[in-house]
Each structure stands twice: as structure tokens, then as C-alpha cells.
């Protein structure tokens, strides 16, 4: 490896490219391409109709422009909307049939699918560009009646569930990127937990963008039936490329009566280089509906990657006594930008929401928390607690907090706390005096700052996330 490459790979260790032959849809966005995607996925006609409806809608709407991070105009006709490893065309039936090159890729990313199948703990769905390449632990989950499979498979095998719930939380008319996703989504995970079942292991999807000039549009749908529980985690990485790549995912969660969904994200897409060249545009729509009474949805996100992160994992608290939570760490370094937060829509009685947001900015980065707490007329005794803390490192970065509160019910209680602090030189000196070097000291202080959120992550990933927090800020203090 050349010195330059070596240096680069130290900064972002997931930046390698897998050299694999792929099948692509023709470049550009048009009806033909949508038909191509639908056809290659052997979708039923209703699905194609659904996509076309979204596409027709898309023609009449514009990209939103209220967000803080601005980005150059995206030429949607210059992108590939479908790219899949050739070997994954004939869907492998089990891991032994999966292309060794793909298995090797996931191994390099720290997800040894083959070994993972033998270890108890986490079931993984691995999505490579536009297709799911492997799902582990299927048998064990099937025993309990749990469905965990690529969404393209669910469309064929469980059309009644998909038809009922897809687009029920994020309608195809929602906004530009959500609509774009509805038209061209390629793969993603589908989860259904039957009534009364507690999912015995963490479910996890690992997303990887590999091909160049390709957008990734995954779609995830999770349904927790009455009285069920599931904890789900997604991880994401991409190679280092000089171009900006678009990632516009939609994630929908539905929790029925007494059900609970815990959704964790560790987002580490390629952030671009030190000068802000390249990196992923992470424009994601995530929304959960607490449709049943006493239901609960909890979002935890650790956002360290992407050139621009723009997402607001939200909860619609329809059921009485339902609970929504949002725990977030957003770290931006160099020229990264993040505009992230949540929306808590209180509709039912006695609904509760909690927002804990930790934003860290270093270098020339810009970090915005934007959140909405909306308490409707009928949401008696609704309760919200919001805490937004920002930590600044250096003099060139920015932190912003934009909380919106709409309250139409006088019996509700809404609390908002916010702090902004700079990493304290004296704290660093204290740590140094105890033998910790600068990087260790920063890692320690920042992890302390993020602790309330890190604690929410499933055990298996908390350690990984802690390390990631340290790595993301490497070189940010002189």
C-alpha cells in the first residue's frame, strides 16, 4: 500500500472497495428503471403499482430546503438505482452458497457471517448495495414464528403483512426523499414478531455501499404484534470515494398494543476526507408508530459517519399510555455536517416521550439538533422531557439547537434543558497528569459526555460504539 493510502485507511478503516462483478440498472431515474427493479426482484404487480404511484408523485415535488447543511444539486439522472453483485442474482439458499468474496467483505468489516451463524447472540441480515446477501439464524427465529428476512423476500412470501403496513407510517407522499425511496427502494430488512413473542436475540442488519455512482435506497419495516418485544440494530459503512454518494433510506416501525421496539443505529458511512471531499449524503427517514396502547418505541443512534447526516427518527404516539424515546449521539469532525433530532407526536392520552441528544463538533464541522414535540388537543397528561447537550472542540466548529414545541393541551408537561460546553483544557490536563495521552483523554471525556446514550445500546455493540466515538475524534485536539 502506498503511504497515502495507508494514511487514509487509518482514518477510515472501512474504506476499501470489494472488486466484484455487479449487475446494474441503466443509469438514471425513469419509469423503465423502476420497472427494471421491480422485475428483477420478481415483484407482484401491486408492488410495481405502488412504486409507480410514488414515482408520479415525485415528478411534482421538490427537495426540502429548510435544513441547515446545504449540498450541491444532485443530478438524479446520473445515478444508478440498482446494483447487485452478480453472484447474488440467483438468491443463495444458505451461507455456503454465498459468494466467498462477499463473506470476506463482511469479515473485514468485523461481521463474520459464517462464524456468527454458529455463535448465539445476534441474527444478521447483510445488505450489499441493493440486495440482501445473507440472513443468519433463520431457523431458530422461524421456530418462534418470527419473520426476519430481506424485504424483497417478504413482498413475495408475506404480501398481506407488507401490503397492510408498508407506507402506513411514512406515506409515499411524505417528502421528496421518502417518496424517492418508495419509488426505487431495493432491499432492506423485514421483521415481524408475532403476538406475545419476545425475540430471543438481537436482530441486526449490516448495510454496505460498494458500487460507485450508486445510491442506496433501503427500506426497513418492523412490526411488533401485540405484547411482543424486539431489539434491532443497524450498522453502515461504505468505501472511500471522492464523489458524494446518496443514501436515502426509509425505516418504518409499528408497535401494537403492549409491544416494544428498540431500534439502535451505529452509522459509520464514509465521512469524506479531511478537506470535505467525498462522503455519503445520509438523508434518511425513520419513523415509528406506537399504534397500540401501552406500546413503546425507543430509538438510539450513534452517528459518526457521512458527509451530511440529515434525519429525525420520530415517534407517533397514537396509543394511550404509549412511550417514545430518542437517544442520540452525533459526532461531526473535519467538514462533516449533521442536522438531526426527532419528532415526538403525542396523540394518545398519558403518552410520554424522552429525548436525550448529545452533539459533538470538532474541526470545521457543524452540528444541529432539531426537534419537534407536538402535543395534540386530545393528548391529556402528555409528558415530555428533552435534554440537548453540545460539546465543542476547537474554535472553528458550530453547534446549534432548534427545538420546536407545539402544545395544544394544558394538562401536559413539557421540559427542555440544553447546555453547550467546550472541552475543558483543565480536564485534559488532569487526565494527562494521570498518564493518559491526549487521544485517550479526549476519548474518556467524550465517552463520559455520551454515557447516557451509550448505555442504551445493546451490550454487544456498546464497546464497539465507545471505540468508534474515540476514533471519530482522532486528531481533533492539537
Amino acid at each position, binding site marked *: 500500500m502506498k503511504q497515502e493510502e495507508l494514511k487514509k485507511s487509518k482514518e477510515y478503516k472501512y474504506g476499501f472497495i470489494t472488486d466484484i462483478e455487479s449487475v446494474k440498472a441503466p443509469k438514471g431515474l425513469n419509469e423503465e428503471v423502476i420497472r427494471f427493479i421491480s422485475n428483477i426482484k420478481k415483484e407482484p404487480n401491486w408492488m410495481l403499482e405502488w412504486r409507480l404511484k410514488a414515482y408520479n408523485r415525485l415528478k411534482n415535488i421538490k427537495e426540502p430546503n429548510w435544513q441547515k447543511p446545504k449540498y450541491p444539486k444532485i443530478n438524479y439522472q446520473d445515478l444508478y438505482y440498482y446494483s447487485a453483485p452478480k453472484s447474488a442474482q440467483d438468491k443463495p439458499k444458505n451461507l455456503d452458497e454465498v459468494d466467498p468474496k462477499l463473506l470476506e467483505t463482511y469479515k473485514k468489516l468485523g461481521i463474520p457471517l459464517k462464524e456468527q451463524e454458529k455463535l448465539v447472540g445476534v441474527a444478521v441480515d447483510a445488505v450489499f448495495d441493493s440486495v440482501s446477501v445473507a440472513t443468519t439464524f433463520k431457523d431458530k427465529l422461524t421456530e418462534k414464528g418470527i419473520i426476519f428476512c430481506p424485504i424483497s423476500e417478504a413482498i413475495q412470501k408475506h404480501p398481506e403483512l407488507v401490503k397492510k403496513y408498508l407506507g402506513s407510517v411514512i406515506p409515499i407522499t411524505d417528502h421528496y426523499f421518502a417518496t424517492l425511496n418508495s419509488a426505487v427502494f431495493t432491499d432492506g430488512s423485514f421483521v415481524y414478531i408475532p403476538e406475545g413473542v419476545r425475540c430471543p436475540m438481537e436482530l441486526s442488519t449490516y448495510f454496505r455501499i460498494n458500487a460507485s455512482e450508486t445510491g442506496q435506497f433501503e427500506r426497513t419495516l418492523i412490526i411488533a404484534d401485540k405484547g411482543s418485544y424486539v431489539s434491532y440494530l443497524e450498522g453502515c459503512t461504505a468505501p472511500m470515494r471522492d464523489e458524494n454518494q446518496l443514501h436515502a433510506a426509509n425505516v418504518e416501525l409499528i408497535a401494537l398494543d403492549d409491544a416494544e421496539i428498540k431500534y439502535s443505529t451505529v452509522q459509520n458511512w464514509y465521512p469524506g476526507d479531511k478537506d470535505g471531499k467525498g462522503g455519503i449524503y445520509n438523508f434518511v427517514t425513520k419513523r415509528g408508530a406506537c399504534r397500540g396502547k401501552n406500546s413503546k418505541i425507543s430509538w438510539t443512534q450513534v452517528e459518526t459517519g457521512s458527509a451530511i447526516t440529515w434525519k429525525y427518527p420520530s415517534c407517533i404516539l397514537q396509543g394511550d399510555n404509549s412511550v417514545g424515546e430518542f437517544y442520540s449521539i452525533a459526532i461531526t469532525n473535519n467538514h462533516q455536517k449533521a442536522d438531526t433530532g426527532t419528532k415526538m407526536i403525542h396523540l394518545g392520552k398519558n403518552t410520554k416521550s424522552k429525548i436525550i441528544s448529545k452533539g459533538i463538533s470538532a474541526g470545521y464541522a457543524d452540528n444541529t439538533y432539531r426537534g419537534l414535540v407536538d402535543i395534540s388537543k386530545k393528548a391529556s397528561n402528555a409528558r415530555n422531557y428533552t435534554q440537548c447537550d453540545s460539546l465543542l472542540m476547537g474554535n472553528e466548529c458550530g453547534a446549534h439547537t432548534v427545538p420546536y414545541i407545539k402544545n395544544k393541551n394544558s394538562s401536559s408537561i413539557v421540559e427542555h434543558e440544553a447546555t453547550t460546553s467546550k472541552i*475543558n483544557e*483543565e*480536564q485534559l*490536563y*488532569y*487526565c*494527562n*497528569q*494521570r*498518564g*493518559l*495521552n*491526549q487521544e*485517550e483523554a479526549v476519548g*474518556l*471525556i467524550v*465517552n*463520559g*459526555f*455520551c*454515557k*447516557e446514550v451509550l448505555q442504551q445500546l445493546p451490550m454487544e455493540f456498546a464497546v464497539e460504539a465507545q471505540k468508534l466515538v474515540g476514533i471519530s475524534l482522532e486528531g481533533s485536539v492539537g
Partner: protein
Amino acid sequence: MLEIKNLKTSINNKAILKGLNLTIKPGELHAIMGPNGSGKSTLANVLSGKTGYEISGELNFEGKNLKEISVEKRAQKGIFLAFQYPLEIPGVNTNNFLKTSLNSVRKARGEKEIDTLAFLKLVKEKTSELGIDEKILSRQLNVGFSGGEKKKNEILQMKILNPDLSILDETDSGLDIDALKIIAKGVNSSRSKNKSFLVITHYQRLLDYIKPDFVHVLSDGKIVRTGCSELAEELEKTGYQTIN
């Protein structure tokens, strides 16, 4: 062990230490007393390597020129500073901090990292030796600690890291008599023929419990008098004004 020759320091062009000389041999305990603003804390900071000072003169520790060594490297080489105002670090578990710290010192010494079990055993031993409540270690580092707890925590860290040179910067200020005894116990039980101490204090009170080999009086950036422990008693009676 420590050799300071003609040390001059200034911060923002304001001279603080103005030609300080001090030699500490292995096994010795030196006390530095002096009025407010005489440069006591500056001396502690400069020895630990805190940045922001302009320094001239010689600073040697175990034969090495300290001026070229960073704060963390000095700590790893065995210089410990018990802070006058220990810092609060929210979210960081005290035990975890102490273990990380011990391991970086051990690594620098070429020793193996200590595992959690052995570490907890060490902590138990040291806390019970000093009579410190173990519970403070499961709390966030110095967050919500009383003044006394913070200082005790400093001494506990000193015991665990087992440095060659311990600098105590007014560790006795604001302590009640029980806490003071714990601090003294921590120092006295660590004294040996190869461990040295520099104890900075305002009051003679601490020196009732810790017997120094030498007492120095620092005034206006220089050591103006050196004597045995009797000097401290004299100062207590007459105050600093008669010194100059």
C-alpha cells in the same frame, strides 16, 4: 531525584518564579510553605508539565531534562501531582478512570496491563488501608464529591499509581481533622528510601502529622529560607511577614 536550578517562569509576561533552586533526593520529604501568590502552585504545575508557562533554568528528574517531556510522559515516568482543585469529569466512572490511568503508567514501565479482578483487589486493599469509603469509586469522577472526598480521592490515586515523586498542592486546605489524618496516613505509609515528596501547604497543621526532612519558605518566586520542621512551627507563630 529532582534537581531545579535557577528556575524562572512567567505567564503572560508576568514573572512568577524568579530563580528557584531546589534539590530533592530519593527518600526525602520536602515541605514548601509561603504566602498566597508566592508561586507555590506554579511550581507544582511547572513540575507536572502544564503548558502555558515560559520557562528558563534547569529542571532535571532522574537525570532527564524534564522540559522536553510532555505531561503524560512525566506522569508515566513517576511524577504525580495531587491537585489543589481536582477536576470533575461527568460520566466517567472513578474506578474506570483509575484503572485506565494505572494501565498507561504500567505500560510505560513495560509492565503488563492489570486485569479487572487484580485491580479491584488492589483498590480494596488501598481503600481499607487509608480508611476511605470504597463507594466513591463507583461514582462519576469527582462529580458531586465533597472537598474532603476529592482530596482523599487524590491520595488514593497516589497510592495506587505508586509514583517516585509525589507533589501535593495544598492537599490539606479546607480539610477537617479526620480527612487530614487520612491524607497524612497516605503519605506516611508511602514513604520509603526511594520515594520522594514535595508537600505544598499554607499551614503548619499538616506538618504535625507528616514530618518533613526540610521546610522551605517560598516568597516572591524564590526560596528565602530553608530549615528543619522547627521552621514550620516558627512560621506558625510569627507569620510570613518577618521572613523577608
